[in-house]
Each structure stands twice: as structure tokens, then as C-alpha cells.
């Protein structure tokens, strides 16, 4: 049985195909650019293409992410916090604490061995604590996004940004540039200031080993190091971490599908 998880995120639309709730067959992602439904379809096509299957081979589709309700051809939708908890535990079964930093928000959650979210906390309404902040800094400093992290890792004396606002932080960064703070130190400062915000969420939830980072920021080793340095715990960063929520959605879809085939006609709960 193949289930699909689609994570219709604010920044990136991601999807996976999962076989029997066990194996990831395919994964894909494209930038959302404000059009989640269109991108969702596109990701679905990419996935199906990758495994040489037909759209009908996908038996169950579960959406998650900010636009989970917008995607019409879904069987189920789950919150992206629920989904990324599941996905993180799928990727690393020893995970008990998940940090999810995406484009617009960051969350920390404690999870059970099944990946059930026990407690969680997310940042609210302010972009200063999310990936968008890194993107903007990249743009401002004219460093390609992919190079932000490798460059940051060379920092000797990271310069932490004190401004609470992602937008105004740019001015602060400019000042740092003007004061000839080395680029690496500025870049690492960006990650550290994100880490500090995430750390507050983590502490609220209660930190238990093992800690796993998921969401788009998992692609930045500097983010992982910054978190470790701030929270003083080892932080795992699974390579498929950006797809954690998509995987979790596919998993939950799979579970639901099984329940349905066991006991027909139970209504979808969340609506």
C-alpha cells in the first residue's frame, strides 16, 4: 500500500510516498511561492514520476502544513506539529524531543515512542524566530542560501543579533558589516539568535534526549551546531529532516487507511 504525505508549507512544498508505512519510496520539494495547491499537485506529479507509478497507485493522501485545508484531493489532513513529531520518530526512533524550524515558524515538542506529541510550544506571529530570517539575511548579505551554513561554520567570535525583529535585524547586520565584523561571525550570529529563540521553546516543553532537528533548517549544519551550543545537548539532524512532516502525514494516512479497511465508514474526525 502506498500513502502520500504532502506538506504544504509556507516556504516549501514537500511530499513523500511511503510504502506500507515503512519505506520512503520517493521525496520531492518545490518552493511554494504563495501557491500551495498548484505546488502540491506539482510535487505529487514529481513523486509519482520518480517511482514510475500512476497517480491512482497512491491509495491515501494526507496533507499537512499551513495550507493543509486548501488542497482539495486529500483523504485526511493533520496539523504539521502532529505530523513532524511522527516523522521525526520515524527518522530516528530514539527521538523524544523534536525541534522543527521551518520558514515561518519554529516549534519544540516532546514526543512519545510512537511519535505522539505530548507537549509542544511554537513561536507566534513574529518572523524573528524562523527560517525566513535566514533567507532574508542571505539575500541581504548576498550569500547564496546554500552557502550560509558552510560560511558560518568558520566563525571564531559569532556576533549575536540583539534586535528582536527580523526586519530591523538587517540594519543591525549592516552595522556589523560596517564595523568590519567578519562575515562568518555575522552569519553564525544569525543562527545563534535563531537557536536562542528555539531554546526558549525547548525549555518550556522540557528537553529530553534524544533531540532531533527537523524542518528546512536541518539542511544547515550551522543551525545544528548553534542549537547544540545553546541548548548544550547533542542534536540529531536526519538528512530527510525537511520532509519529516510529509513523512509523518504519510504515516498517519497509512494508519488511518488501515483502520478504515478494518472498520469501514468511520467519519473523518477533524473538519
Amino acid at each position: 500500500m502506498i500513502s502520500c504525505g504532502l506538506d504544504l508549507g509556507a516556504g516549501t512544498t514537500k511530499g513523500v510516498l511511503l510504502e506500507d508505512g515503512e519505506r520512503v519510496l520517493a521525496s520531492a520539494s518545490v518552493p511554494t511561492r504563495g501557491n500551495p495547491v498548484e505546488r502540491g499537485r506539482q510535487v505529487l506529479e514529481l513523486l509519482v514520476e520518480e517511482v514510475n507509478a500512476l497517480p491512482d497507485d497512491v491509495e491515501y493522501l494526507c496533507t499537512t502544513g499551513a495550507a493543509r485545508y486548501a488542497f482539495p484531493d486529500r483523504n485526511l489532513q493533520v496539523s504539521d506539529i502532529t505530523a513532524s513529531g511522527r516523522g521525526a520518530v520515524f527518522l530516528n526512533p530514539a527521538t523524544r524531543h523534536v525541534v522543527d524550524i521551518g520558514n515561518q515558524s519554529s516549534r519544540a515538542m516532546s514526543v512519545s515512542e510512537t511519535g505522539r506529541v505530548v507537549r509542544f510550544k511554537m513561536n507566534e506571529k513574529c518572523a524573528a524566530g524562523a527560517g525566513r530570517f535566514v533567507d532574508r539575511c542571505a539575500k541581504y548579505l548576498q550569500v547564496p542560501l546554500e552557502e550560509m551554513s558552510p560560511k558560518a561554520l568558520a566563525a571564531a567570535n559569532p556576533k549575536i543579533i540583539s534586535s528582536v525583529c527580523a526586519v530591523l535585524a538587517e540594519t543591525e547586520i549592516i552595522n556589523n558589516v560596517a564595523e568590519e565584523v567578519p562575515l562568518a561571525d555575522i552569519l553564525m550570529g544569525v543562527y545563534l539568535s535563531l537557536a536562542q529563540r528555539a531554546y526558549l521553546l525547548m525549555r518550556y516543553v522540557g528537553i529530553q534526549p534524544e533531540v532531533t532537528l527537523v524542518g528546512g533548517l536541518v539542511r544547515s549544519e550551522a543551525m545544528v551546531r548553534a542549537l547544540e551550543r545553546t541548548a548544550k545537548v547533542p542534536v540529531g539532524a536526519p538528512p530527510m529532516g525537511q520532509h519529516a512532516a510529509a513523512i509523518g502525514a504519510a504515516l498517519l494516512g497509512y494508519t488511518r487507511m488501515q483502520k478504515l479497511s478494518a472498520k469501514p465508514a468511520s467519519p473523518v474526525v477533524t473538519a
Partner: protein
Amino acid sequence: MTLLAVTGPEVGSLDAMVPLELSDDLREFARASSIEELTKLAREVVLDPSYPTVRAWTRGGRGAVGCFPVYTPQELVHAVGLLPVSLHGGGESVEISHADAALGSFLCSISKSTLELALTARLAPFRAFVFPYICDVSRNLEGIFSRLLPGAVTHMLHLPQNFQSPATVPFLTAEYRRLLAKLEKAGGDPYRPERLAASIELFNQQRARIAELTRTKRNEPGKLTLTESYLIRRLGALLPREVHIQLLDRVRTELGERPNRAKDSIRVLLIGPFCEQPTLDLIDLVEQVGCYIVDDELLQLHRWYDRIEPGDDPLSSLAAAYVESPVDIGVRAAPSRKGEAILRRVEAAQAQGVIFLTAKFCEPALEDVVLYRKALDRQGIPYLHLEFEERSTSYEQTRLQLETFVESILFD
């Protein structure tokens, strides 16, 4: 500050809409024949920041008193022939442009919108305002009202926090006399004990019926939605009590016939919104995502006590009721008892989890949440803490968190 200068039409706000007009005797409510009709009417009244029911009441020359939440002894206001009305803020519809200047940035919405309503003449139907000392904001708001609305009578009611001292009831009785003196200035009749006794009895009747309504919600949560229960209760401090009691009787009869539509929802306790009220959209949303709110702290005012015996001296009986037997909420000292209290309430409501829904910047509520959390953690009871503001129009993040909470209980 320029008073009463409403500048230009406000896009998307209710100012641009025609305020609801009601007949002087509020006959519309008598005609509402079903819960649906009643809640529809209630919704219009609640969403109209110009207090249509109060304007209807005062058209006949009668006086009304605005009572800031909570624990204002509205019986006293009623007993001197004035209409006690709860000021529950501006909801989603009031844009704040004057009040910010006086209040500063880090304050709850209800304080700002209440002042905004005053500065834009929408509290004109009231002759007097009572602010109980439930928190520093409510208390200070009275000081601001007294300056910016020199024409109105304002009063800050000191509510005692020492519940052990034998001197507390006599003190509070004296406090109530100070309030009576102010009400008299606002055109209230002189105080007569027998009238207060009658008012207390009337409020007892209202409370008993509301208690029944909330019991129904607890025992058969599929019978009525939280929004319905809320709107019906909310009318209780916007209409003459006599009218509301009749409405409640009708509601009771109708509920007797309604089926208890069971859904796959979790039973949840809703703690925190005892003063500022969430918007109707938010109240809707909480149940929509898959919760049954089996007990809540919305609109506490009808539920402080079971019953008050007026006795020989109704004024001190009323004071004693506050000191000795009210429901504990975040604005009443209960040292060393908070943790226990929440566990008892969870148990009583047979709730599977707790949602703390606290007004942004509402410090009394925020501080209690920590004590509650600790107790819930010890027992492994799930909870979620959300903050709300009056003028939020987008609930994406709130919905996300509510759904996660429900899913964490429903999915294993």
C-alpha cells in the same frame, strides 16, 4: 487628546454599519422562538459595540451602569433601580485609535477597547462605571476614566483579598456603602434593604438557571454548542434580568427536546477567559476542531455563587457571599490551593485535557497557568496554553495548535 473625534469611516469595521435598533421593551427577545433565533439575535447584540439593549432600556429615561468584570455586585446596582450591564470589551469590531495613547502597549485588549468605546461616545448610555480591583489594569482604568469622562460617575471598588480576617466582611460592607453613595449620585434610588433582598433573590433565580445550562453542557455536551451556551449567558448581563430569566426558561424547555448529538470529540476544560472574552470566532473554533468544552471560565459573573441568602442584613450577606463562598478564579487569592483546585475541576468535569485560553497581557491568568501546569504535569493530564486578543482576525496558528492538541489525545 481629542475626545470623541471619530475620524472618517473605518474600513471593515462595524462603525460603518447601522447599529442594531431594538424596541424599548426589548420585545424582539420575547418573540425569539428557538435557540437558533435567540442566538442569532444575541450575536447581533454582542457584535454591536454601541450597546443596543442598553440604549433601548435607557430610552425610557432609565439609567444603566457599566460594570467592568468581574465580581462587581450587580445586585446592588439592580436594587437601586439601575440596569447593571457587564462591560466585556469591544470584541473584534472596535478599532483602537484613541485608547492606545492613554494606556500603553502592553495591556489586555479589554482595557483598551473599553476605553476606546468611552472615548468614541459608545458608552454614552451609561451613567456610571464600576471597576472592581481585580487587577492593576482594571483599577488604573478607573483612574483614567475619571479624568477623561468627567461627566460620568466612576468608582473603583476595592475587593478584599484577605479571606481569613473577621474584619473583612464589615470592611466590604462599608465598601459597598461607598458604592451605593456613588450610585445615588448617578441617579440611583436610596438604598433600601428589602429591595436589595428582592434583587438578590432575582439574581439567585438567574444563577440557578445558568447553572442548569452549564450542567447540561457538562453532562450532555452534544446538546448545545459552546457558542450557543455562551451567547445565551452573555445576554444575561446585557438585558434586564427579568427578561433573561424568561429566556432561560424557554431555552430549558427546548433543550429538553434536543438530541445529544455525540461526536468523536474530547472532553476539555476551558480555563482563563474570566474577564476579557474571546471573539465568537475563537469560541466557535475551539469546539470545531474536535473539543467538547464541558466546563469553562467564560463570563464568570453569573456563577460566583450557588445561592445567596439575603438574611436580615442583605448588604452584609452580599459582602459575606463574596468573602466566603464564591467560585475561585484567577483574581481571587487562594494561596497553596491552586494546584489542587485544577485537579478537582478536571475530575469533576471528567475532562481529558485542559485548554488555557488567556487574554494576552492578562497577568493574573498567566500566573495561574504556571501553577496549574505543574499540578497537571504531575498527573499526566494534557493541556494547551493559548493566548488571545480581541482584534485578531486570523486564527491559523491557533487552529494549528488546537488541532495538534486534539490529535495528540485522539491518535495514539
